[in-house]
């Protein structure tokens, strides 16, 4: 490849931090430029609702790689700049500040943005969404012992945030619009488990309630709900999901379908433009459908595939999705995707203890595992999902039988 080839990466994300140095490792000798609309080097996002918020880690400690690595790999990073348009015919990228950059390969690692809600008072001081480091830094200014926090949305972000704020001594209420927390992502048994733990930890969870307005005089004071209830608040955090950042790809005329559509080599509908991470929709051969994942694993693995593709070394992407969530002393590890499950098998005391595994089944086969404080059930669960064999629910539920023994050799 010609030494003057230019690769531009848009978004300083998990995927970008993986992609850029991997390009060098795989022999890319051209230039590499990362364009970011943030003012930070790529950092780990998961700790924003966990260790960073709770004060256990600072901004430097959540960097994915130290600054020196980007220098060493000759990766240029332009911060605080937004990419405006892509001119595919001339292979040019226009930035919002008016600058134009030529590319040979362009990679979109634009991630996702928070879904916003449109109720009165969302602009008051002390009302936040949580997606980036800037959000988390601002939120920290409103935390404090015995202050009151209301969290709108009982998904993983909301619940992790509740846990972190409890650690800081705050009084926390979680408002969930659906009949239960974690409705979109877990079985009722698992949701009930988390509801119990949060109650035990002193968090008030209110389900089936819609926040309709937020009030205060410049600074937030309370949240009003559809049923007339009101919750006092010094801090409000809204966590109701994310939307993939596809605007740039759309403007460029790339194929979009619930995310930027990429093939198994991370290529979009334009072979010189690739994409990786939360912003993509890709076909997963294990689940045999298109997926858009909100996950670190996907960002890293897809970015590695993209780097190989750019270096002319095609390696198809096929990975079992996995996720994690840390709350209190609970380490939840999720293997696979549970959508479409018909039965749930539970191993361990989900109603009384803080350790269990829930197996999501369809037609006798394992689709996904939620394992709390059970890393072995998570790890061996991954293998059982990939094997795709029929499993006996009684054996899965039998806590005295190590999961390892169910793996076909």
């Amino acid at each position, binding site marked *: 490849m010609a030494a003057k080839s230019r690769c531009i990466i848009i978004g300083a994300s998990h995927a970008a931090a993986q992609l850029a*140095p991997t390009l060098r*490792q795989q022999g890319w000798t051209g230039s590499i430029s990362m364009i970011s609309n943030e003012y930070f080097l790529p950092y*780990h996002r*998961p*700790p924003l609702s966990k260790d960073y918020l709770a004060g256990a880690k600072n901004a430097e400690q959540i960097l*994915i*790689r*130290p600054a*020196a*690595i980007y220098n*060493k*790999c000759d990766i240029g990073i332009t911060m605080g700049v937004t990419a405006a348009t892509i001119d595919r015919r001339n292979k040019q990228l226009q930035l919002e500040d008016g600058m134009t950059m030529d590319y040979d390969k362009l990679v979109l690692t634009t991630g996702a943005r928070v879904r916003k809600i449109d109720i009165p008072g969302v602009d008051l001081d002390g009302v936040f969404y949580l997606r980036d480091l800037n959000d988390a830094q601002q939120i920290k200014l409103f935390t404090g012992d015995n202050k009151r926090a209301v969290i709108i949305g009982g998904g993983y972000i909301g619940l992790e945030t509740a846990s972190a704020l409890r650690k800081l001594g705050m009084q926390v209420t979680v408002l969930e619009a659906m009949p239960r927390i974690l409705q979109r992502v877990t079985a009722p048994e698992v949701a009930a488990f988390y509801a119990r733990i949060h109650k035990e930890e002193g968090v008030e969870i209110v389900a089936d309630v819609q926040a309709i307005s937020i009030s205060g005089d410049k600074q937030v004071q309370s949240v009003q709900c559809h049923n007339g209830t009101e919750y006092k608040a010094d801090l409000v955090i809204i966590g109701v999901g994310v939307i993939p950042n596809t605007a740039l790809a759309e403007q460029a005329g790339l194929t979009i379908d619930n995310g930027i559509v990429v093939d198994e080599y991370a290529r979009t509908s334009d072979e010189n433009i690739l994409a990786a991470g939360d912003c993509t929709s890709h076909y997963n051969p294990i689940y045999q459908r298109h997926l858009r994942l909100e996950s*670190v*694993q996907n960002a*890293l693995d897809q970015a590695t595939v993209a780097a190989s593709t750019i270096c002319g070394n095609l390696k198809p992407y096929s990975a079992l999705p*996995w996720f*994690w969530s*840390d709350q209190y002393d609970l*380490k939840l*590890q999720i293997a696979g995707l549970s959508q479409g499950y018909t039965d749930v098998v539970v191993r361990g005391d989900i109603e009384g203890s803080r350790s269990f595994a829930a197996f999501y089944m369809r037609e006798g086969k394992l689709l996904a595992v939620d394992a709390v*404080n*059970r*890393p*072995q059930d998570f*790890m*061996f669960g991954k293998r059982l999902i990939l094997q795709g064999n029929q499993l006996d629910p009684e054996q899965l539920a039998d806590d005295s039988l190590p999961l390892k023994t169910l793996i076909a050799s």
Partner: protein
Amino acid sequence: MPRVTYIQADGQAQEINLEAGSSLMQGAVDNMIDGIVAECGGSCSCATCHCYIDADWVDKIEPAGEMETDLLDCVSEPKDNSRLSCQVKVTDSLDGLVVHLPATQF
């Protein structure tokens, strides 16, 4: 700064100076050492930063916790000297430490 040697499964060795207090995993990631994947970024969740502590050093390192021990049971080719490198903090007393990397993390 303690000096640590990472030795790949094929015998290739790299010597790195690590910040005291950082983890063996972070040192590997910061220096682009192949063989340490570290998907979860050091939260003891993924077991993709598996390594073997050189026999001469095993006794000088704090033993693994319960979560780590459980995860180590699931890695490919676990041995008595297996550790998750994200859980091993590097101190000045570990200057000269030698770590062996497995052929695969999966």
